[in-house]
């Protein structure tokens, strides 16, 4: 259109660049923090440009941990976070594919009931039922285990709904052709439905990986031993709000490390992620 002239485009560029700078600034500052030594930061003398302490801070974070609060090295925490994120993503995708397949491709008594049982979970995040759930996990002896950390979070309707929605768009004729070609339900599921769902699965993987990696309240309660804690919890424990004991250089290095995997996945799989995110919710 005519008004889409140079001025309009300039305004758009300027607004977007300001937005990007505001979003990126905290992360830049964290990076700068991870390159100066703790004393410089604590004195409030940190400049706005990177310093010489980069290798030392990351080395200490990854392999030693902070001296005071949590003595676990960050790579253990990253391993825990990775296991948690992968287990949640893979677990959710697996059980959701199966249940969506059942709900879409079969007719059986209580089908609607089963769908509603799953659907209602959409409404109640783990935070609202946190203590009773904690009690059950504790009664089952699952505190401080990966199972306790992940299985209760696997039950959610998001992935089931997405896959259900996708399955509804698969042409009926493919099922019929498969039947005529002598394929039973599981063979159709493996040979045809799964290969067709690759994009949806990838989208769901990104979303659920991030969901798992970023969990906070649940691991805070379930993991009491230091060697089970996730990186987000570990980072939080490094920050001691009330006094200056925080080793900010190590903490900021940890923050950067904690951000890397999920941000990398979002950027690398942006196409799937955007599609998955926007489609799940519609």
């Amino acid at each position: 259109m005519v008004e889409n002239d140079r001025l309009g485009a300039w305004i758009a560029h300027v607004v977007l660049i300001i937005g990007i700078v505001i979003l990126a600034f905290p992360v830049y500052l964290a990076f700068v923090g991870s390159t100066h030594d703790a004393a410089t930061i604590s004195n409030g003398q940190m400049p706005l440009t990177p310093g010489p302490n980069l290798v030392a801070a990351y080395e200490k974070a990854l392999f030693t941990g902070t001296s005071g609060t949590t003595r676990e090295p960050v790579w253990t925490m990253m391993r825990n976070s990775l296991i948690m994120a992968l287990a949640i993503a893979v677990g959710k995708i697996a059980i959701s594919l199966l249940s969506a397949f059942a709900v879409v491709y079969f007719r059986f008594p209580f089908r609607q009931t089963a769908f509603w049982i799953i659907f209602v979970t959409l409404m109640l995040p783990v935070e609202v039922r946190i203590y009773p759930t904690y009690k059950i996990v504790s009664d089952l002896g699952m505190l401080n285990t990966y199972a306790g950390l992940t299985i209760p979070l696997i039950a959610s309707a998001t992935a089931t709904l997405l896959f259900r929605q996708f399955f509804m768009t698969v042409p009926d004729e493919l099922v019929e052709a498969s039947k005529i070609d002598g394929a039973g339900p599981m063979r159709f599921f493996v040979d045809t439905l799964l290969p067709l769902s690759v994009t949806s699965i990838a989208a769901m993987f990104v979303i659920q990986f991030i969901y798992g990696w970023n969990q906070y309240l649940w691991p805070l309660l379930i993991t009491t031993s230091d060697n089970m804690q996730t990186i987000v919890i570990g980072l939080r424990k490094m920050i001691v709000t009330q006094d200056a004991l925080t080793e900010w250089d190590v903490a900021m290095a940890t923050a950067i490390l904690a951000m890397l995997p999920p941000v990398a996945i979002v950027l690398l799989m942006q196409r799937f992620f955007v599609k998955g995110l926007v489609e799940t919710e519609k």
Partner: protein
Amino acid sequence: MEKRAIFDNKLLPYALLLPQILITLVFFYWPASQAVWQSFLIEDAFGTSSEFVWLDNYRDLLSKPDYYASMLTTAWFSAVVTFLAMAIALLLASMANKQISGRNAYRTLLVWPYAVAPALAGVLWLFMLQPSLGVLSKLLRANGVDWNPLLNSNHALIMVVLAATWKQISYNFLFFLAGLQAIPRSVIEAAAIDGARPMRRFWTIIFPLLSPTTFYLLVVNIVYVFFETFGIIDAMTSGGPARTTTTLVYKVYQDGKLGGDLGGSAAQSVILMAIVIGLTAIQFRFVERRVNY
């Protein structure tokens, strides 16, 4: 909508559903019903016996001023974060939806904060706003603001709002951008031919057509502030100073950590559940009516 082509099989569908239903029943329905049940009970000090007390726990809860204070904090916090995060995201999305060069690069550079954990967002902003060493604190002090979120509750709230908004902009941006891209160009061109200037086009054509997205995001953002900001609050203020940044969810956590009042804690959970169910129900009603379509 139903499939025409299905498989006949009596037992297989139940086997396929089993894992999800089992996990849902054990870790979802069982604890949720426990919470409801416990909210009607009072346990004695040793946890050996309990008594059914009807709504006493709720009456108790609602008679305490700090519960109202926490409700008020949550409401204020939700309103401000939702408004800011949505307004900024809409502005950015409208700009990114223009036919300008580098649109994809802009989108990439705006979406990544979605992947940052809320608690991590809290730590990042704390690093900037920490009174003694934060870069922004120094700036504020230099300009005569006595910035101290550790003692000043308004400062603490502002700090939490900033981090929570920062984290949520990307998510809203993505949805607004998708919503804008779904508006047919011809509609906007027709409005231009009808003589509507850009700003007028935005408010009379684009914004009304975006209303399903806006409404969806409204509910999602409120739910986000209710629950996911837990990590931000815990990392930045631990609910302080003087409990002024304690939201309803944070209060459930804190009261539970102290132990003791199981019934009261359960009652808090039940009220939270009711709020979320209410919000979701409203959302479905409106989505069904397809706001404006």
